């Protein structure tokens, strides 16, 4: 459970171009459900996602994660929590070119200091789970868009997170691949993971996989169902 109260986020605070991307968000993300954030471009979806996922600290307001107040934590500890709790899937898949699929997948686990062999085995199992077992040693830039996204999903799962965060996951995919993605999403939801994603793709927002839809406009929640 993630609880946000009175969240406000400013960019360029105190300067002439100060901009409040979020102005007063109260929101609770339920466990083991799929929540979608939607809204027009610039409405603050990504900003809200970064705060939910502990990538950024709010300027004002409280964040509670599993009944622990994490609002004032410095980056070092926020990162530790994030690494344990969250997996991230980005719109641009953000894989590191020049490394193989396997190596990309185990990157988030490097700071945890687990033995390399154990990590590689885990990564292989994950790749097999998304039917990419045979491409494990391919450099990621040789993979197709859909394959890259599946590698990115495996990377998000390497630390076995309870919560998955996805920002516009289907924006770079065609309809067929988007449907495939929804299939994977459903599997992950069935495993009991909490999923938060942003999208303005009706295919995603209106699909049966999504349990809750939260609509944003100008940094405020206008609708939640």
């Amino acid at each position: 459970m993630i609880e946000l109260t009175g969240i406000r986020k400013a960019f360029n605070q105190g300067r002439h171009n100060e901009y409040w991307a979020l102005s007063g968000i109260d929101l609770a993300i339920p466990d083991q459900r799929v929540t979608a954030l939607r809204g027009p471009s610039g409405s603050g979806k990504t900003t809200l996602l970064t705060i939910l996922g502990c990538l950024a600290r709010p300027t004002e307001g409280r964040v509670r994660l599993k009944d622990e107040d994490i609002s004032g934590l410095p980056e070092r500890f926020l990162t530790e929590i994030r690494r344990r709790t969250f997996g991230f899937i980005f719109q641009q898949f953000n894989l590191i070119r020049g490394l193989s699929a396997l190596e990309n997948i185990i990157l988030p686990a490097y700071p945890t200091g687990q033995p390399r062999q154990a990590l590689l085995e885990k990564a292989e199992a994950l790749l097999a789970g998304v039917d990419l077992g045979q491409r494990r040693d391919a450099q990621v830039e040789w993979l197709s868009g859909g394959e890259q996204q599946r590698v990115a999903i495996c990377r998000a799962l390497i630390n076995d997170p309870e919560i998955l965060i996805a920002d516009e996951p289907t924006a770079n995919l065609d309809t067929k691949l988007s449907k495939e993605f929804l299939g994977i999403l459903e599997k992950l939801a069935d495993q009991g993971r909490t999923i938060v994603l942003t999208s303005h793709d009706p295919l995603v927002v209106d699909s049966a996989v999504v349990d809750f839809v939260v609509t944003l406009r100008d940094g405020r929640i206008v609708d939640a169902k």
Partner: protein
Amino acid sequence: MPMKTWIEKQRHLIDFTLASLARRKAKNLGLLFIYTLLVFVLASVALYAHALRTEAQKVLASSPEIVLQRLVAGRHDLIPPGYLEQIGQNVRLRGVQKMEGRLWGYYYDSVVKANYTFMAPRDMQIPRGEIIVGPALERSRGLAAGNGISFRSYSGELHTFIVAEVLPQTSELVSADLVLMHEEDFRAFFKYPEGHWTDIAMSVANPQEVRNVAIKLLSTLPDSRPILRDEVLRTYASIFDWREGLMLALLSAAILAFGIFAWEKAAGLSAEERREIGILKAIGWETGDVIKMKFWEGLLVSLLAFLLGYVAAYLHVFHLDAMIFEPVLKGWAVLYPRFTLPPHIDGLQIATLFFFTVFPYTAAVLVPIWRAATTDPDTVMRS
């Protein structure tokens, strides 16, 4: 964090940084080359100066504790007959074990435009008409044992000698230009008056006594000038230190340039590198992890450059006779003794070199690394 986890984590970071170095070969090889070059130059200077210093010390170790010269009108003059005996009788010198007159002088060889040191050693039996020469003469005049050679003396006569032997290569710095001959030959060649000596050598057993002996000599023989071996040693040591320091001061410009270069390299992260760091931060790396990763990168590059540069300098100085710096650092004889220095490695020197190379490098890359490492983790979501 348990030790094992910590080590494993550092291994991961090193793995990553090695892979990332390999991915940007051109850029990193450039840095490595410049870095190695700097270490090479500094290490060459240090090794060379140090070897010269130890060499000079070794040479002087076998020379007498005190050399006594006589001054006339403030200038070095010959020791007249009876002077030596007078010291023995009038001055009671405690601690002086042995005292003897020496014969030596310089000879300018106009054929090869070089100076030789002619000497009549007292502890060696050289038959009349024969000479023993240093390796420099062997090279410059193409001499070998059994050859004959003629020198035109200062009075114009031609003297011919047979080379009995060439001195071995060890400690060439001083022996290279030596020509050893019989006392009678020496006196005949230079028209050296009978009974006169160039100077007097004294050996003193107890080092604590040397100074007292010198003071006593000065007070009883006001026209004498005692030269103490330890004094010469110190002078040599500080001259070499000075030259080395001066070279370093000149090279500090190079160190500074290197620092700026390293700064530029570290600051000029490519867009690709910036993106990679952004990704790492977004997927769960912390600023400290990125700094550590970059630290390993710097350490690996530094160690590699240091090793390569130092080994190259070692080969340069001890196997290629320091061809590049010879003229600057040695420079005391017209005839450069081409000598092979005994290899010598010194802890203080390595530590100092480390200070001059790794320290500026680290200082220079600190800020750029920090800049890159503090990329906000949410930046990759906003491209």
